[in-house]
């Protein structure tokens, strides 16, 4: 019985969720993500949906982030990679224009969740 239950669990875990829902963050995460974006001032360089101002153009627009290919044209497009990139871009992608940003690990996860969760076209 236990073995069966365990194997069922393993099977469930092994299943990948459908693409549309894989990166659907909770509303809490999204709200925290946007708050962290505003506090850290990401808009100084990026146009970010949901943020009227600032909408800097030094860096790329972050609209439709769920559809982009590689992060910064170089890194696998996964939330954990994005979170790491947000905190220490030059560490993850040497030579990156984007400097390390003063956000905590959980804030970076929230920001990543926000960026993936804002546009489903």
């Amino acid at each position, binding site marked *: 019985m236990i073995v069966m239950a365990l194997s069922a669990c393993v099977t469930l875990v092994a299943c990948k969720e459908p693409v549309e829902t894989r990166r659907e963050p909770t509303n809490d995460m999204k709200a925290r993500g946007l708050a962290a974006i505003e506090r*850290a001032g990401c808009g100084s360089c990026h146009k970010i949906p949901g943020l009227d101002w600032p909408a800097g153009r030094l860096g790329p627009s972050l609209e439709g982030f769920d559809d982009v290919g590689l992060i910064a044209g170089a890194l696998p497009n996964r939330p954990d990679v994005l979170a790491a990139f947000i905190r220490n871009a030059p560490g993850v992608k040497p030579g990156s224009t984007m*400097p*390390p940003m003063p956000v905590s690990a959980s804030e970076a996860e929230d920001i990543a969740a926000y960026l993936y969760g804002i546009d489903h076209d």
Partner: protein
Amino acid sequence: MIDALWGWPPPVLDPAGPYSAKVTTLSWSLFALGLVVTAIVVAALYVAIKGPDRWKAKLGGERAIWLGGVAFPGVVLTGLLIWGLTLTASLTESIRGDEMRIRVTGEMWWFRVQYLDADGSVAMEDANEIHIPVGVPVVLELESADVIHSFWVPHLSGKKDMIPGRRTLLRIEADRAGEFGGVCAEYCGGQHALMGFVTVAHDRQEWNVWLAGRRAGAAQAAASPASASEGASPYPGDADAYPTEAELLEQYDPRAGYRLFMDSGCAACHRIAGSDANGLAGPDLTYVGSRRTLGAGILANNRGTMVGWIGDSQSLKPGNRMPSYDVLTAKELGHIAAFLELQR
């Protein structure tokens, strides 16, 4: 970014000092009086429509107009004017001589801040940030370099216009430590809405530390312009996840930043005490690394926003006097930002 106007209770009804407390008293009195007058008007309207004929005749008579339309507002408004001016007279009291004095000059679209000696000469210059000790009245000498601005920290005092060619006085005082946002409260051109500042009230001990830090910073800057004192890392949380100061210095070199600052024309508008940068047109950057905000109270101050502001300030605050330095490379922007972070 410290918000001056939002929050609950609204800052103007949440005084943090004796001068703003008077403004709050005045505000509540006006609300209450407005409520009374509205009630009287509504009652009169009700009588005029539904009241008995005898009352209607009285209300429409000459006597009612003289009493309710002339005498009542005349007496109430005159009384209110005298009381209001008396109540807030201390906000604009002239200088006695023993107060702390700060000259604040409105510029399109930022605030020049000069701490004055007892004899009125400039002891220290800063921008968009005013530091005061708790419990001490501070006299602000308000001036303008171009158009009419208005100085307003709702938590600490009333509004006062900054008028070209004139010097106006305004007193502020905080009775609790904290950071209080301020804004320009008089339309002054395209970026009026992005013209803000922060007032930081320190308790006594913290104030002494701040003052000592400023003096030490100035001395150190004078000794070596390219690297003033290094403060605490702005990066929160588990420090391991971030590059160390040394690693950051490897990527971005403050000395290279200093040379770029001097060679790219930054020094033509910006002054850094103790260095060859002596421009006076823009904000003094001697302490820019310690400021809470960039761009006049509008952006957080970190490496990212600094790079964004230097590289592309025209996208963030269109029409401001600083050109976007998009002729520099990302690396060069990073060098300059690293250099400026050390100016504290």
